[in-house]
């Protein structure tokens, strides 16, 4: 199966708020510090947004909505990514798509 990537989703996300996932260096410290031990790494979920993988974002809705927004990841992030800000944007996008 071919998965197409595209910039449209990232554009939609940026319309909803500051989405700076491209700053992420994939070092994984966010995962190491996450109290929830999120099953899909924060950086992976953000990457779905960057690559335009709508279905992957939808499939990981529980990850997006279970984030505690506690910022433990941000306190350690060497790249200064606004991880919880990105999660908030993904939540907004999911709510908008579902017309909640």
């Amino acid at each position, binding site marked *: 199966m071919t998965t197409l990537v595209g910039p449209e989703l990232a554009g939609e996300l940026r319309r909803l708020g500051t989405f700076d996932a491209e700053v992420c260096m994939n070092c994984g410290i966010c995962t190491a510090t996450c109290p929830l031990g999120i099953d899909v790494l924060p950086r992976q979920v953000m990457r779905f947004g960057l690559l335009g993988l709508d279905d992957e974002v939808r499939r990981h809705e529980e990850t997006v909505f279970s984030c505690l927004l506690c*910022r433990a990841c941000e306190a350690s992030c060497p790249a200064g990514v606004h991880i919880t800000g990105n999660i908030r944007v993904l939540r907004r996008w999911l709510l908008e798509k579902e017309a909640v």
Partner: protein
Amino acid sequence: MALATREVIGILTDNLRLRGSVLPVPARRATRWAREFGLPRGGERVLYTGTMYHIVPYTERLVRLQQRLGSSRLAGLVPLARRLNRLVNGMPLVARPTSEERSEYERVPANVAQLLLRAGVEFGYLYEDDLYTGVLAYDLGAEDVVAAHAKRIAGIFYKYGVREVITIDPHTTTMLRSVFPRFVEGYDVSVRSYLEVLAERGLPVEAPLAGDVVVHDSCVYARYEDVIEPPRQLLAAAGLQVHEPANSRTMTWCCGGPAEALYPEKAAAVAAQRVGQLREAANGVQSECVTMCPICLVNLRKAADGTMAFRDISEYLLEAAKARS
């Protein structure tokens, strides 16, 4: 989107839009604490509760209901419940905490008012206009509803000539201080937690306490609002020996509470981990844990299941500030 997620968020945002709070607590009940103080209505400086402490016992009742429903056939009625809730406020029917469950939370605003008055701080109160800030809806991503609500609250501040707000919990603090300026053009209100105000003024101590406590930082105070030293200064001024858990200050460990509305089991697992760290910090000493957020208080206490005592910081501070009879 999973049905439960969609409908729970839907009910909460409907409530905020229609009734000014995700969980509408009767205004009479939320403002009852202020009766004994005869506080002026409004004024340049007000104490603002955002009804956060009042809401928590109701949230707990709802979470219990949610857990009971689980994936039973009754859970399929949630969409219908949402439609009915749009017409009639369903909260009083499904979430009815007992007076015992409410009393500890309802006491906190009164504790804070007493502390501020004893420290010589003058302030007013907005009574039924002291509205919930919409933080839960904001955290769940419902920004449009929250933006409209922020404008409503800013309008109330302008109406009463409020220039300075003193808050009593971290979530209300961050909404009024860091989020509302994004939603309300020209928002010019100074917002400080009562812990910051008291630390600056100095805690008026009449009866110093003795003993050991473990401090649990709220994520929002520590990582969003940089309120880290004030609670420690105040607890030390009250005479208490403060112990730090493994994850403390900017690296504090979440209580799990923010996940509770949608995923109570995940919230409980995080809280259990945190209770383990707090118990370890107590290191066999007879110590209690101090919290400074109603969500932390309820979640950690539930996870500890009686193995450790938890109290709000205002209880300790007021005990030290009051002369013993």
